[in-house]
């Protein structure tokens, strides 16, 4: 945030403000509607009524990067798609996080060939890797909760990004 660049690490005095900021960030983190392949179908199942990701603040899948805080890379990223993915990541407003959902996004998975990027961390910095091919909806929700712990643990000093 703008203010903490000036104040730096104030320890006790700013804990409650950090928690307030972290609380507001984690309870309404809107993912970007960015389904690539098979994991997208499991992401839709996670969003649908049975597993209901909205219980964790992910009520809406915003189609445009301008209104989304989190990019769930759900599926395999091909060489032709990588620059587009990078462009979308750049166009997201600042407090943004990335979940690499599935083996293909995390490390290329089953496909070790010319067409697939071996892991999306060569394109965008990734915060949470969710394993599975495709990961069950519960695994995706567990990945989201791990991201929440990471965001809640952030101190002001680290929030400079």
């Amino acid at each position, binding site marked *: 945030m*703008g203010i903490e660049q000036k104040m730096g690490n104030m320890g006790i005095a700013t804990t409650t403000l950090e928690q307030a900021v972290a609380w507001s960030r984690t309870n309404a983190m809107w993912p970007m509607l960015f389904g690539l392949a098979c994991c997208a179908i499991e992401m839709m199942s996670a969003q649908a009524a049975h597993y209901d990701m909205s219980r964790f603040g992910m009520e809406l899948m915003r189609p445009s990067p301008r209104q989304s805080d989190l990019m769930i890379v759900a599926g395999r990223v091909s060489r032709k798609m990588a620059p587009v993915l990078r462009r979308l990541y750049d166009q997201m407003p600042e407090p943004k996080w990335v979940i690499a959902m599935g083996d293909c996004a995390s490390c290329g998975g089953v496909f070790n060939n010319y067409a697939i990027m071996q892991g999306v961390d060569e394109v965008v910095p990734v915060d949470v890797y969710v394993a599975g091919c495709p990961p069950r909806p519960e695994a995706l929700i567990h990945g989201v909760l791990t991201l929440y712990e990471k965001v809640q643990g952030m101190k002001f000093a680290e929030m400079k990004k």
Partner: protein
Amino acid sequence: MLLEYAAIASFILVTALIGFIAIGLGTIFGPKHSTDKKAMPYESGMNPIGPGTRRMPVRFYLIAVLFILFDIETVFLLPWALVFRQLGLFGLVEMFLFIAILLVGYFYAWKKGALEWE
């Protein structure tokens, strides 16, 4: 006499305050990190083709005007609905007259084909 308007003034004040707080906090404390890529127009991940500002067909303007026209009509309905009881029959007839005039305008636009895109 001034006192009656105090209610409306405070109402406007509070709504303006809520608006400014919500947006103001975001702009003051929010991190600003604008890069040239972020400033580019978003076209589902690709580069936009051709100049940014392009010639828009007049149809869009026509639809916008029609929308504003009938939106203002509903804006007039709201305060009427509040004092509906006190106005009695006179208010009812007056409002239906107002709506009837606008309906004539609506049918005219409809028959002239303003609602069709072509």
